[in-house]
């Protein structure tokens, strides 16, 4: 396996790794549940994507066969991640979890909670 490919692989891997790390870090660092939801649904997802591509390339150059299987996982994550976020946000609002004070339009939580339309005075 020549240098260039190793380089690409390593970069992809490191990117993925760091994104995963960041995602999990955000889960801890970010102030409230709503903001925390962002971290994994995005960072982790892409991180996984990077790693999956890396492993695809690896199998391609290592066994010489293009193993596209991993794409399936990526696809799956891209479908499921937003939904997970959505459901968790729903749950969070349902449980009236505390948002940080400086959150804009926090009043929308109550409206969204009952899935009503907002009163149009704001816009």
């Amino acid at each position, binding site marked *: 396996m020549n240098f260039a490919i190793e380089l690409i692989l390593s970069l992809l891997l490191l990117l993925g790794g760091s994104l*995963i790390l960041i995602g999990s870090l955000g889960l*801890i660092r970010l102030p409230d549940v709503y903001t925390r*939801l962002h971290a*994994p649904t995005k960072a982790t997802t892409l991180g996984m994507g990077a790693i999956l591509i890396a492993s695809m390339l690896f199998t391609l150059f290592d066994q010489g066969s293009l193993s596209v299987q991993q794409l399936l996982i990526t696809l*799956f*994550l891209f479908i499921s991640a937003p939904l*997970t976020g959505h459901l968790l946000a729903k749950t*969070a609002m349902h449980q009236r979890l505390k948002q940080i004070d400086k959150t804009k339009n926090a009043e929308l939580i109550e409206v969204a909670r009952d899935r009503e339309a907002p009163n149009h005075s704001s816009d």
Partner: protein
Amino acid sequence: MLEISLKIVLVMISIALIMNTYSLVRGPSLPERILSLDTLYINSIGLILIYGIVQASSINFEAALLIAMLGFVSTAALCKYLLRGDIIE
């Protein structure tokens, strides 16, 4: 070089897993715990794939796939439970 980067990534993922466990324990709210669990699931997929590269085998591909699928299902079920109490209605 690949070996080194693989090692590094493994370390990163391990740290991530530990962090997820931490936030799972910390919570404080149930959705946050569930979120940590979900992240734990996804990160473990990464772990498996990295191992696949290390061992140069795709024997655990199905495991990864199933984790992706089933992790989602259980997260969805947990949320539904918190929302409705009754997940199948």
